[in-house]
């Protein structure tokens, strides 16, 4: 009888015991390219990094560095950063975390032959050394204020990562709240809670991530209950309906990115600041935000992003003003002398090509601007093509007006240093301003946050006055989830780190 009971319990109760595992089912638009944080380049890889690894620091929702694997840090000189590490942390494979792992992670990151796509953020680091088991020292070539913001890279275990080599990206080992159980590429990622997690085992047992490329289908999967959580990109036109229905939680914030028009100042038409200002007056950011993005992306003003420490509204803004734009164009010598509706100067018509990559919302923006600009006598054409060819053209300077975006701007330096210095690597439009050059160099040297804030405010004033960029939108970040998910903290980087402390109360 006892055997029968035991068998009964085994057969009938065991599945129930298994069924109690709490699984968070999340959807992503693209699969992670790699799970090696040093090689991460897409947002999905960053999301996996949030779950599998810890960095020295983590950026809180205000984008301020907080201790993670680092307990504390101190600049002992302008070019020396000493970081004290947490003790008693272990990797998923049971190996203890030490200073050697930090040295290894950052040494490979800056190694020319390693191939990290984000290497340029770390090149001011000359060397990293272990002072003792729980202290590391970063030696810099020159003062580099933004460094702390970039020390959130996941730390990889020295021995395992070096012995696995290129295969480490498929077999990640970190110290994070979850470890990788299986990865069916292009389809599903299964992560399980890390029992040894230093900051306490997560309340949920498992995260099952499905890769669903189509934005509408991913939303349908959430609505039909096949998923618990999805985030940007989501179709903006559905947000209002979802809010009204109230069945899902809709959370929205500004992300760390902006969408802008890149004006090629090497183009003779666009080299005149009055023409650039006229274009800014003709680009109705409010309408674009409301009509094309349904308020998901907000009207932009500069590279200083709302909800960050460095935000400032002390910049030049350009309201939609057709008359003012026409005055500026006339003052620049562009008038419609032959009465064909298009302004001209010295026999040359005012023709500009607006270009962007294949993306329905971006294409809508350009088509909207084409019509608006035509009212002021500008003959604008629109060309939309695929990303690799497009970005190649932009980098080579083969464009008039390009619609692009910058992402992951965790520091104002990252939004400006390469973009606006006259010899900056991403200054595609050949913008040159000696004062901006000086300020941007200074922004890297000054370590006091208030001092830096003042510097970048000055840069923003220069840039919004001279307009190498027309800042159209602050990008929005949206997370949608089931009511049962509690404790999720919205993060402007789209970080999933707070999954370590969420619960599912179905």
């Amino acid at each position, binding site marked *: 009888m006892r055997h029968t009971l035991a068998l009964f319990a085994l057969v009938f109760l065991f599945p129930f015991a298994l069924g109690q595992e709490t699984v968070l089912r999340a959807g992503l638009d693209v*699969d992670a*390219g*790699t799970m*090696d944080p040093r*090689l991460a*380049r897409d947002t999905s890889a960053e999301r996996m990094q949030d779950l599998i690894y810890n960095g020295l620091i983590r950026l809180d929702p205000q984008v301020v560095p907080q201790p993670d694997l680092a307990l504390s840090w101190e600049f002992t000189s302008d070019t020396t950063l000493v970081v004290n590490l947490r003790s008693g942390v272990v990797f998923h494979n049971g190996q203890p975390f030490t200073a050697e792992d930090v040295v290894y992670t950052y040494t490979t990151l800056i190694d*020319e*032959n390693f*191939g990290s*796509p984000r*290497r*340029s953020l770390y090149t001011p680091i000359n060397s990293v050394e272990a002072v003792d088991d729980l202290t590391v020292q970063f030696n810099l070539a020159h003062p580099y204020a933004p460094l702390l913001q970039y020390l959130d890279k996941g730390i990889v275990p020295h021995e395992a990562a070096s012995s696995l080599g*290129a295969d480490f*990206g*498929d077999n990640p080992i970190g110290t994070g709240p979850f470890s990788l159980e299986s990865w*069916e*590429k*292009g*389809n*599903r990622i299964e992560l399980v809670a890390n029992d040894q997690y230093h900051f306490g085992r997560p309340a949920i047992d498992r995260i099952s991530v*499905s*890769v*669903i*490329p*189509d934005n*509408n*289908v*991913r939303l*349908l*999967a959430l*609505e*039909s209950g*096949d998923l618990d959580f999805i985030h940007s990109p989501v179709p903006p036109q559905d947000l209002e309906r979802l809010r009204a229905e109230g069945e899902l939680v809709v959370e929205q914030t500004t992300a760390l990115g902006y969408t802008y028009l890149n004006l090629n100042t090497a183009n003779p038409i666009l080299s005149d600041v009055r023409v650039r200002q006229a274009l800014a007056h003709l680009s109705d950011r409010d309408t674009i935000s409301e009509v094309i993005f349904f308020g998901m992306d907000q009207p932009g003003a500069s590279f200083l992003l709302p909800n960050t420490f460095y935000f400032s509204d002390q910049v030049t803004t350009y309201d939609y003003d057709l008359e003012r734009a026409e005055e500026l164009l006339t003052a620049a010598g562009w008038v419609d002398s032959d009465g064909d509706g298009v302004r001209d100067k010295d026999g040359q018509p005012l023709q500009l090509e607006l270009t962007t990559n294949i993306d329905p919302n971006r294409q809508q923006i350009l088509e909207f601007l084409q019509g608006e600009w035509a009212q002021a006598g500008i003959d604008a054409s629109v060309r939309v093509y*695929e*990303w*690799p*060819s*497009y*970005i*190649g*053209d*932009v*980098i080579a300077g083969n464009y008039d007006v390009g619609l*692009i975006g*910058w992402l992951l701007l965790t520091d104002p330096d990252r939004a400006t240093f*390469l973009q606006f210095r006259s010899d900056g*690597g*991403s200054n595609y439009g050949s913008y040159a301003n000696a004062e901006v050059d000086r300020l941007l160099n200074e922004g890297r040297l000054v370590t006091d946050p208030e001092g830096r804030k003042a510097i970048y405010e000055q840069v923003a004033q220069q840039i919004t006055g001279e307009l190498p960029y027309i800042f159209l939108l602050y990008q929005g970040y949206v997370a949608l989830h089931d009511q049962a998910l509690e404790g999720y903290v919205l993060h402007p980087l789209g970080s999933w780190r707070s999954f370590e402390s969420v619960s599912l109360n179905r």
Partner: protein
Amino acid sequence: MLQYALRRLLLFVPVVFGVLCIVFFTVRLVPGDPATVLLGPEGTDEDRARITRLLGLDRPLPVQFGIYLWNALQGDFGRSIFLGSSVRSLVLDRLPATLELALLAMFLTVVIALPLGMIAAVRSNTLIDYGATLLALLGVSMPLFWFGVLAILVFSLRLEWLPSFGRDPGLFPAVGALFSGGSLADVWQALRHAFLPSLTLAFGAIALVARLVRSSMLEVLNLDYVRTARSKGLAERLVVNKHAFRNALLPVITVVGLQFGTLMGGAVITETIFAWPGLGRLVVNAISQRDFPVIQGSVVFIAVAVSVVNLLVDLSYAVINPKIRYG
């Protein structure tokens, strides 16, 4: 027949080599390169040069081709630039998903289109015929992505009969697991996941094949030997099923075989809508990132698969019509 098959197999070598040459050089002719995409707009010239060198893309084209060919002959198709994994494992991981979808779609095509076309032919110019024609017209004119999303809306969101996305588990693995203690429930689960994508994929083919069967049957039904069969007093069912159908089948098999090639490489839209981890999506993503090794490797695999199916189709002619002989 064996000799013919062997000769055809030998022909695979120049076919695959030709495909490889075309793919290798055309992907490099297209504007945009992997280093630029990898680094994005933030990349500096120095970074791009470094990555290009690390990828070996700074060497002269003939040298790159030589190295690639030499490695490919040894079964090494390189590593994906963006996914890190070896191209061989990427392709072999995706192949079952694509084959599953293509075979199920072929199955649905045949079981739906053949009867539909036959009925339409036998009852030509009746309401049934018009109905079948209308269905076929819908099939060719409804865009896949629209039909797919509509199917999810109806069957997953409203009726809650079928899952909305994904391959969970795969049909092949689930069937394979039956031999080692797997459960029928898994196979059922796999079929539930595969049903909407394969129906979506098959929809166009069903329309095409049904129309073809109808016209081919109508043609055969008007031939002399069918009249003879009828005048012998054979039952109409025998005339249609045995005499006419067999002969009407030849062009249909050709088209169905060709459809298989389309299904193998052209399932991209279906795979994207239903988040199906197949080869089509892998190739299209690779193209949009300029992931040269993945494009090359997968196109070669697809070329081989299509060649094999074409060979099988040719061989099946002889089975269906004994008058056709290969030697």
